[in-house]
Every structure is written in C-alpha cells, then in structure tokens.
C-alpha cells in the first residue's frame, strides 16, 4: 500500500464520525423527542400557535407544512426547508377528556438510533417545531378539491401502503427503494390527485410532471457521506442526484392544482 492510499484510508476513517447527513449539508426528519431545543419553549409555543392560526384563517382543512431543521447557511443551494408533513384540521381529545379543534401533523420521521429507517408518526404543531434551528414555516394549502381528497386518504391503509421505511435524506422521488419525507408527501399528493395507490403508476406520473431539486453537494463529499452515514444513500439514483423539496412540491401544485396557495410564516418581532 502506497503512502497515498494509506493517507486516503486514514482520511476516510477520520471522516467517519463527522460525515453524517448534517456534515453533507442536510437535515433529516427527526421528531422533537430526538432533537435539541434551540429556542425557549414559550417562543416555540407562540410560533406554533401563529402557524396554526394562519392555516385556520385560510380555512385549510389539509395543508403541507414545512420547517427549518438547520440554519439556511448550512444547507446546500436550492434547499430551504428540511422537513415537510401534512397538517390536518382535527377534533383533538385531550388527556382530561375535552374535545378541542386544532391541527394534527402527520409525519414521516426517521427513527431514533436508526437513521436509515422511518415510521409514520402523528404529533402536533408545537412538537413539529420543537427542534427547529430557525422559526420559519412554509405552508402550502392545496385547492379545496385536493384537500378533500387528501382528507379521505390520510390515515387509511392506502396512505400507509405508500410509506417505504427505507430512508435516505436525498431520496430520489422518481424511483423506489428509498424514501424521505418530501417524497412521501409527493406520493400521497399524487395518490389523492389520481385516486390510486398503485405506486408504479404514481412514479410514472412524477417522472412525467414533477421537477425535482438537484442536490448541490460536492460529489466526493456525497460519496463519502453515502459510505459513512446510514441516512445518505445513492442506491436509488442513476445519474445526478435530485430530491423533492417543499419548494418543488409547491411549484408542482401551483402549476397543476388551481387554487393552491403557498406562503411562509415568521415569528412576531
């Protein structure tokens, strides 16, 4: 072994602990139970309530909600929000038996300790924003017709069947084998639009009509990330990696779902 190959091997070994998805420049989809808090709870509670009221004022029965798990400066170009989920206007039963109206959030979260595996988890706005790095929310409200179809789908066996637990933070939305939160949301949206749970048909639709975001990360760094971080996989990518984002899903619905609306919510100054 030459000194150069020894150096490369040592380099790889040295990188292993630091080459998480975060080092590659992404943030996965973790629940607030597994994330550190970056703001005082009262600030998060106030912001989460503002987001709820913004959706309610617009009459949104179902919305797509996005959060920033990392500061913008640490994300690759073209990425802004790091996790998306469905917010569904619901009748919530509290621990003491009262029934109150509010939004329940339907997420695909990475499992704690198993970053290459995800599960479907329902929580609430304050849990959703609990671990954010920046208090900024993206909200995408589909047309009333699409909201109604989504409401009929979310939480059903057909919805569950669209979930692939094999997680990659840069999952390719055009292929099967790996899935992240944005790809899952996109699959559910197209399942509702076309009223099918045939994933092969859904992928065909996405190849034809959906434009993914190119992953703007140095290929060498990406390759090392895929070697040393379980949550980064290139196995479902053929060529240049691309993934779904809140912005690309917003572009898709703005183009094809007349009456859909996208906006951001910031905290009060």
């Amino acid at each position, binding site marked *: 072994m030459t000194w150069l190959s020894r150096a490369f091997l040592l380099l790889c070994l040295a990188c292993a602990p630091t080459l998480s998805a975060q080092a590659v420049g992404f943030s996965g989809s973790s629940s607030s139970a597994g994330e550190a*808090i970056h703001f005082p709870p009262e600030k998060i509670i106030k912001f989460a309530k503002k987001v709820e009221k913004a959706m309610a004022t617009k009459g949104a029965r179902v919305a797509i909600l996005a959060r920033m798990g990392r500061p913008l400066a640490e994300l690759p170009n073209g990425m802004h929000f790091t996790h998306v989920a469905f917010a569904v206007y619901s009748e919530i039963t509290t621990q003491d038996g009262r029934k109150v109206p509010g939004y329940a959030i339907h997420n695909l979260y990475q499992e704690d300790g198993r970053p290459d595996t995800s599960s479907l988890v329902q929580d609430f706005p304050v849990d959703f924003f*609990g671990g954010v790095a920046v208090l900024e929310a993206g909200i995408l409200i589909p047309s009333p017709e699409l909201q109604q179809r989504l409401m009929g789908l979310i939480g059903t066996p057909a919805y569950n069947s669209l979930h692939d637990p094999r997680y990659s933070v840069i999952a390719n939305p055009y292929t099967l084998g790996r899935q992240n939160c944005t790809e899952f949301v996109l699959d559910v949206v197209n399942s509702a639009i076309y009223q099918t749970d045939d994933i092969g048909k859904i992928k065909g639709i996405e190849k034809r009509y959906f434009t993914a975001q190119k992953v703007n990360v140095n290929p060498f760094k990406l390759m090392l990330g895929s070697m040393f971080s379980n949550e980064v996989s290139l196995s479902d990518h053929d060529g240049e990696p691309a993934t779904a984002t809140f912005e690309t899903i917003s572009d898709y619905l703005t183009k094809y779902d007349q009456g859909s609306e996208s906006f951001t919510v910031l905290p009060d100054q």
Partner: protein
Amino acid sequence: MNLGKSNWITFILGTFVASGSAFADAGTQSEQAVRQGGLSSAHASGSAAHAIAASGQATSAIAAVPLASGGVVSAAAGAGSTAVAKDSTRAANQPLEIGDETITAMPPPDQALRNKADKPKNGI
C-alpha cells in the same frame, strides 16, 4: 510548500477534524442562546419535546380525528374506512376555529413514569 508523508497525513486529518468542529459549533451556539433566553441548562441539554412538556404550557392529547367540511369525504381508490368527525357548520375555505391552548403528543409526567419505556416519538 513541500510537506513530507507524515505531514500530509497530519494536514488532511487536521482539516477534517476542524471541519467536524465547525458543524458542532451550531449546537453549542444554539444551546448558549437558549441559556441566555432564561432556560435552565437541564432543558438545553434535553430534547425539544421534553423541554416543551416540562414548561407546563402544553396539554397532552390522546386522540385526533380529522374534521371534514360538512362531513363529506371522498375516499381515494383502495382506501379503507376513514374516521372523520362531522363539522357541518363551515364550508370549504371559511376560517376555522383554533383555540389558544397548546396541544402536545408528549404524555404528562405521571403517565410517562408509568410507561416502561417513554416513547414520545410515536405520537398518539
């Protein structure tokens, strides 16, 4: 600059250790910001969910059922039955009622203590 073999290795490793430290800084600064915001260090080092639950400002929920407009829900093909509560008072796009109470998926402390393993990530 002419570096020997061992110096090259030291340089490369040093570069990566430094880049790893840069990523760690974000968390440190955030924790510092939280402490400056008046939270105890115990909260700063715990998870977000636990910090919010410990604040005593959120109510735990045990169930959530979608509230459909007029109770009319069109099911997608292949979908099973959906539990949907009827909200016949408001049509689509009309402002919806939201209270000031904050709801969380975290169980209250007495229930969390009864659980063998506290798994708040599973929601409700």
